[in-house]
């Protein structure tokens, strides 16, 4: 299955892209997506446990993904 991964702000700058499509086996979790992103150049700058969201809701690392899910790796927020 394919999921979309979104990167923002300092993470997008570090890795040099703001979205990517990732192919994963059925039953894959958000953690598998993070592992995939960690293999990219610049990704050593991600913190050990980044904030994560699936389909616009905060989610845990062990959240099981479905096809076409949108996974976001979220830098420390700074609105207001």
């Amino acid at each position: 299955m394919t999921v979309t991964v979104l990167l923002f702000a300092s993470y997008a700058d570090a890795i040099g892209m703001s979205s990517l499509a990732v192919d994963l086996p059925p039953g894959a979790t958000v953690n598998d997506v993070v592992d995939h992103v960690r293999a990219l150049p610049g990704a050593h700058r991600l913190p050990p446990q980044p904030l994560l969201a699936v389909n616009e809701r905060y989610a845990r690392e062990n959240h099981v993904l479905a096809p076409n899910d949108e996974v976001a790796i979220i830098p420390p927020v700074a609105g207001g």
Partner: protein
Amino acid sequence: MRTAIVDHSLDPTALLSEVAQVGNGAVLLFVGTVRDVNDGRPVSGMEYKAYRTMADRELGDIVREAAVQFGTHDIVVEHRLGVLGLGDASVAIAVAHPHRGCAYDASRYIIEQLKQRVPIWKLEHYADGTREWVGAAHQPGGEDV
């Protein structure tokens, strides 16, 4: 109740009239603006970016929580994105309530939750020409991002 993530300059006064009701004895308006100094460094401007669909949803959730918890539907919140100059309003929160205590508590709840949960980031533009994502250096274990 209304929330919006917008690309144009905010009109906080319009929010005041939007929440005013003759049954409400208290109206509270919070306006967050771009400061000229942050952590001792002179700032020349600020650029706000968001994960827009999630920011919209999360902000709506926060306002619905506040409505239930503090007992008023007369709440309007707007957050601006894009490049802002010094003194420009980045966020405006208007709350009206029959009683002032709840108006203060609801307003405070919304701004604190917004700052913790809504996926918005700011790129601070410093007077010396450099730029930095606010808060990125303070992430545990992520000092170099």
